[in-house]
């Protein structure tokens, strides 16, 4: 995958480039902390998104805070942070503390922040795609131009019927939604070739009369430009787009998985050579956007922030057992009235 120069795309300022870089570093630090904490027996599970940093930083930068709505999926640490979700709350989700926005109910990365436009999700693959489309219907129905919905998912999700139904409805009604497929080539142990015949997920958009775009998911600027363009088109009545950000999953699916059982080390090593994080660091240094000293300082700041947040949140209490009850309905839980 090469850095594609995209014509007529929104320009990226140096400040935005640095935002992208910090988000990528932060995402990686949070995710690897999750794996560490799991190995230390401090959290029950972690889900890494190593390899998705550029795709998520770019998508998150395209998200208009206070306007747009995010229907994420479980591998979205970077996007959540980029859309304004507090770092401390991500750790509260990891540690399942009483302070977690779901009260410790939802598994790691399944967050909720209605005030930030970040939707609550289940783990049911592609279920959120229909919700995203319903949300986009609302924006169109209330004529809230200038706003768009982001619907995140993996390539495996595009085999689910609900994904297809959501795509179809969004296209029929020209809804303000951008489907962003983070194609990391693997769905747990199932490679893309067993998921579909298409080489490109984006080709599926054509079946719905929708625009499909492929972007190098290791290049955060290209992702930002493609997603932002799709987002602006959607927000201004131009209809939905399916963006396929081609990336790779460097780690096992979760801490409960062992990818050595189904894919070769050679494949992973080949992809690692394209690691978007060091590559984007070098690119910004070479372009003079950041110097080595400032880069070292940024890394140190991110690391210190993650350490401090980990310690602070670990010290917070677990939810009481009574937290299991309530919020089943607005009224009492009891099925007997």
């Amino acid at each position, binding site marked *: 995958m090469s850095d594609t120069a995209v014509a007529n795309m929104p320009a990226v300022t140096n400040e935005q480039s640095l935002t992208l870089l910090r988000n990528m570093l932060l995402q990686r630090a949070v995710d690897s902390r999750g794996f560490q904490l799991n190995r230390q027996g401090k959290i029950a599970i972690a889900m890494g998104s190593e390899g998705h940093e550029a795709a998520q930083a770019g998508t998150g930068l395209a998200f208009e805070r206070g306007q747009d*709505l995010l*229907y994420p999926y479980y591998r979205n640490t970077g996007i959540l942070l980029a859309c304004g979700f507090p770092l401390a709350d991500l750790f509260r989700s990891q540690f399942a503390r009483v302070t977690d*926005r*779901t*009260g410790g*109910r*939802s598994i790691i990365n*399944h967050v*909720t*922040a*209605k005030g930030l436009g970040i*939707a*609550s999700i*289940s783990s*049911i693959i592609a*279920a959120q*795609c*229909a*919700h*995203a*489309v*319903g*949300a*986009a*219907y*609302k924006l169109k*129905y209330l004529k809230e131009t200038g706003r768009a919905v982001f619907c995140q998912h993996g390539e495996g999700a595009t085999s689910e*019927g*609900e994904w297809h*139904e*959501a795509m*179809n*409805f969004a296209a*029929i009604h020209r809804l303000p939604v951008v489907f962003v497929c983070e194609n990391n080539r693997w769905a747990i142990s199932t490679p893309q070739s067993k998921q579909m015949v298409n080489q490109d997920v984006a080709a599926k958009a054509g079946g719905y009369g929708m625009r499909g775009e492929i972007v190098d998911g290791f290049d955060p600027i290209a992702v930002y430009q493609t997603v932002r363009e799709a987002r602006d088109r959607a927000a201004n009545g131009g209809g939905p787009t399916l963006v396929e950000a081609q990336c790779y999953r460097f780690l096992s699916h979760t801490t409960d998985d062992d990818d050595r059982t189904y894919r070769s080390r050679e494949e992973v090593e080949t992809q690692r050579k394209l690691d978007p994080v060091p590559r984007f660091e070098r690119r910004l240094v070479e372009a003079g956007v950041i110097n080595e000293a400032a880069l070292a300082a940024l890394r140190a700041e991110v690391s210190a922030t993650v350490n401090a947040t980990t310690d602070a949140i670990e010290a917070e209490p677990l939810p009481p057992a009574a937290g299991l009850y309530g*919020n*089943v*309905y*607005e009224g009492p*839980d*009891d*099925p*007997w*009235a």
Partner: protein
Amino acid sequence: MAVAAPTQTMNNVEAVRATLYEALKADPRTIVLGEDVGARGNVFLITKGFIEEFGPERIVDTPLAEASIVGIAVGMAMEGLRPIAEIQFADFIYPAFNQIVGEAAKTRYRSNGDYTCPLVIRTPYGGGVRGALSHSVSIEALFYHVPGLKIVAPSFPADIKGLLTSAIEDPDPVLFLEHKRTYRLVKGEVPTGRYTIPIGKADVKRAGDQLTVVSYGLYVHQALDAAARLEGDGMSIEVIDLRSIRPMDKGTILESIRKTRKLLIVHEDNKFGGIGAEIAAMVAEEAFFDLDAPIRRLCGPDVPAMGYAAPLEEEFMISTEQMAETMRELVRF
């Protein structure tokens, strides 16, 4: 309901239609979506004329895709609209099971109240219309196990109006079941103007002191007929219409049993694991020593569905005579 309130005679189709119409009039957040709800006005003509009056943005003819009819409605509800999704026949709700059980019912819970899902899913169910395997099923037992869902199944026009209004205003997802055999069969007086009936409140449709019959849907009407016949033989039978299946009105059932000391549960859905099993278990736990006879259940047989041929449908459905016979046995027990 005020006794002197003016009323209008309606059948069940008209009651559903009038209530939807009033909801659409009252609140611009209300959206009706489903298959053929627009130009055709729904296969039972419930929404006939709505698309002309309210426009295609509010009366949405969806693609033929039940999972997303509910899933899109969930997203609308999460973002503050008040969708009323229609599943054309209850038999076609299975593709939407995931969105109902996995998503709608859990939205409030999993987000700890951050997001809610004020959604109504209306669907016609039930047999006696020669609908065969895929136009006759009862689905309530598949869903009443699910915390986070409410299920309502009224079968009198006035109850339909009050409960559908409550369902539309409810802050949580409600599965609203309409017995299709009663659509044009059952007529009654419906108070004009807006009113609500609380979800979770049963109604004693006939008072009696020798036997309690608990039912819902089409069979309430047959149970009332059977009870009326037995009155001539000096038998006094109380008939309770559950109206709401979840939450269910424990108080009304127990109060009645403590008076009559006998219980018959009648429902069209399959017997095994049905609504009656839960009622029987509850009564056994709470009122065992108040009973003078074993609890009886008259339910759909445990076969996948009723058949198309008339004898196969008749064999599945419980006749008024069967109900009367069982009531007689229990009263005499």
